C-alpha cells in the first residue's frame, strides 16, 4: 500500500549516465515528477530522448546514477537486486512492443510464469492464469503457443501475464507498435477499462499521438529532460 498522502511514484532530480566507447552519455539529465495511484500517463518523445531509460528506471529494471526514485514510499536505489525482483514481481506488470512471450510455453504457462516466481503452487498458478486469460478473452486459447496466436492475441496474453500477480502499475512500452489499427484500438480500450474500472496505474510509452490520446496525462521527453507535462483537460483547453 502506498503511504497515505504520498504519490505512488515520486521522482526527484533523476539522472542516468551510460558509459559508452565514446565517453559518458547522459540519458537522463534531472527529471522530477510524481505519478499518483490510478493515473493513466503517456510518455512521449523521439528515440534517444530518454523515455525508454526513464521507463526502465521506473520499472525497477535499472538503478539511477543520481537522484531519487520512491515507489510506494520505498527508495528504490537502496534496494538489493533481489528486492527489486520481488518488487517487479508483485507491484509491476510489463507489456512490451515485441510481446516478449516465451515461444516454447503455452499461453497458460506464460501467464503463470510470474506466479511461479511469486512462490505459488502449480495448481494455484494454473487456476489464476486461466482466470486471467479468460479476462482478456483468451480462455479458449490457453493451450496454444504464442506462434499459434495472432499478434493481437499474443499481446493480450502478455497483458494477462502482466496482470497475473495483480500489480498496481502496468508499464507498457509501445504496446501497439506491432499491431494494426483495429487491434491497437482493442488493446487500448482494454487498457482504459483496466484503468477506469480497477484503478490500475498505467504508464505508457509511445510515439503515436492518437495512442497517447487514451491517457489522461502526457509527458514529453527531449534530450533527457521533461519538456512537456500536461493533462488531457489542459490539452483540450
Amino acid at each position, binding site marked *: 500500500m502506498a503511504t497515505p498522502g504520498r504519490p505512488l511514484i515520486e521522482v526527484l532530480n533523476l539522472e542516468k549516465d551510460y558509459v559508452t566507447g565514446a565517453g559518458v552519455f547522459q540519458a537522463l539529465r534531472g527529471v522530477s515528477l510524481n505519478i499518483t495511484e490510478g493515473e493513466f500517463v503517456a510518455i512521449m518523445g523521439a528515440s534517444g530522448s530518454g523515455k525508454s531509460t526513464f521507463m526502465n528506471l521506473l520499472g525497477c529494471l535499472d538503478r539511477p546514477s543520481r537522484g531519487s526514485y520512491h515507489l510506494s514510499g520505498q527508495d528504490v536505489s537502496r534496494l538489493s537486486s533481489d528486492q527489486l525482483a520481488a518488487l517487479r514481481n508483485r507491484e509491476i506488470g510489463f507489456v512490451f512492443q515485441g510481446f516478449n*512471450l516465451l515461444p516454447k*510455453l503455452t499461453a497458460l504457462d506464460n501467464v503463470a510464469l510470474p506466479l511461479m516466481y511469486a512462490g505459488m503452487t502449480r495448481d494455484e498458478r494454473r487456476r489464476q492464469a486461466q482466470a486471467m486469460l479468460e479476462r482478456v478473452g483468451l480462455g479458449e486459447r490457453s493451450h496454444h503457443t504464442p506462434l499459434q496466436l495472432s499478434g493481437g492475441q499474443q499481446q493480450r496474453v502478455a497483458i494477462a501475464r502482466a496482470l497475473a500477480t495483480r500489480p498496481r502499475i502496468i508499464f507498457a512500452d509501445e504496446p501497439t507498435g506491432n499491431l494494426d489499427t483495429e487491434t491497437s484500438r482493442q488493446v487500448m480500450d482494454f487498457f482504459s477499462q483496466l484503468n477506469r474500472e480497477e484503478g490500475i496505474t498505467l504508464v505508457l510509452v509511445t510515439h503515436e499521438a492518437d495512442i497517447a490520446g487514451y491517457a489522461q496525462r502526457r509527458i514529453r521527453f527531449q534530450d533527457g529532460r521533461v519538456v512537456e507535462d500536461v493533462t488531457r483537460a489542459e490539452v483540450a483547453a
Partner: protein
Amino acid sequence: MIFSSLFETAWHALATHRMRSFLTMLGMVIGVAAVILMMAIGEGAQVMVRESIKSMGSNLFIIMSGASTSGGARVPSGSAPTLTFDDANAISELKDVLAAAPVSSGSAQLIYNGINWSTSVFGTTPDYVVVRDWPMESGGFFNEADVRSGARVVVIGQVVVRELFGGEDPIGKIIRIKQAPFEVIGVLAPKGQSLDGRDQDDIVMVPISSAQQKIHSNAIRNRVRFIMAQAVSEKSMGIAESAITELLRSRHRIGMAQDDDFSVRNLTAIAETAAATTRVMSILLGTIAAISLVVGGIGIMNIMLVSVTERTREIGIRMAIGARRRDVLWQFLIEALTLSLIGCGIGLLLGVGGALLVGNLAGLPVSITPTSVLLAVGVSFLIGVFFGFYPARRAAGLDPIEALRSQ
C-alpha cells in the same frame, strides 16, 4: 520459488531440445558406463587374484633345484635335481618352518575302464596338502607309512574325477597310471585357477616313493626338483627364508665363494606383486574412465553456455517478471544437474549391462560393487554442479535490460 517448479522448468527446457539434450547426455552416459565397466573388470580381476592367492596357501616358499641366477655356463634350473628327500625333512625341522614337502612332478596317461586322461602327477608326502592348505572332498590322503612302503594309492583332483569317472564314486576304484595299477583313496576339494592360469584341479597325487619307482621314470632316486615349505607365520617369512638357505648351503657343502645350487622363492611375495599389479591396472582403467566422465562434464558446460547465450532474451523476460538472480541460477544449475543425472542413470544401466555381458561372453570375472555405483553417481552429481555452475552464474549475472534487448 518452489523447488518442484525448477525441475518442471528444467525438464521442459530439455524436452524442447530433445536431440541436443540427448547428445549432451551421451557424454555422461559413456563416461558413467565406462567407469562402471572398467571398475567391474578391475575389481573382478582383483577378486580373481585374491582367490588364486588364497587357494595357493599362505606363507609359502618354493625351493627349486638349481641356481636361480642366470649368466655364465650353468646347468639350467631344475635340470639336475640337487634337492633330496632328506633336505625336505631337514627343512621341516627348522624352528620357523611349519612343514615342508618334496615334490616330484611329471605328466602321465591315466586309464580307467577304457577311458584315457593325461594329467600331471605329483609324487609327494602328506605334508603337501598341509602346506597348500588343501582339504579333501572325500576319502583321505595317503600317510607316512604309504610313503615309506611305496604304496600304490592315489588321490585325485576334481577334473580327473569328472573326466574319468563321470558320476561314479571313484573311491576304491583302480586306475592305471603308466600301466601300473593304483587304488583311488581320496578326492581333493576344488581349488580353481592358479595365479599363472593353470587349472589346479587337473592333478593326481601319489606317494613320492611310488612316483619315483613307477611313474617318473627319469627321476633320480631320492632327489626332487622342488620342495614346498610353509613358514609358521607371515612375520617369520624372512627368518625362515634365510634359515632354509643357510641349512641347504651347509647340507650341500657349498663353500663361501660358491653360488647356491638351489633357489628359494617366496610365493607370497610373488602373489603380492601380482595383486599389486592388478590393483594398478584397476586404478589405471578407472582413471581412464574417469577422464571420459570429465570430458562428458565439459560437454555439458559447453551446451549450457550455448543455451544461456541462446536464451538471453528468455532470461531477460524472466527477470522482468520477477525472477531473482538466484532463481535464474537455480534454473540453469538444475538443468545441468538433470542432464548429468539422467545421463548417469542411463550410463549406470549400460555399464552394469555391459559388465554382465563381458562377464558372460568373454568369461572375464566382473564384480560390480556398490562403491563403484555410488562413485559414479556422486561424481556425476559433482560434475553437474561444477560444470553447470559457471554457465548458470553467467545467466544469473545478466543485466535484465541488456538481456531483454537481445535477439
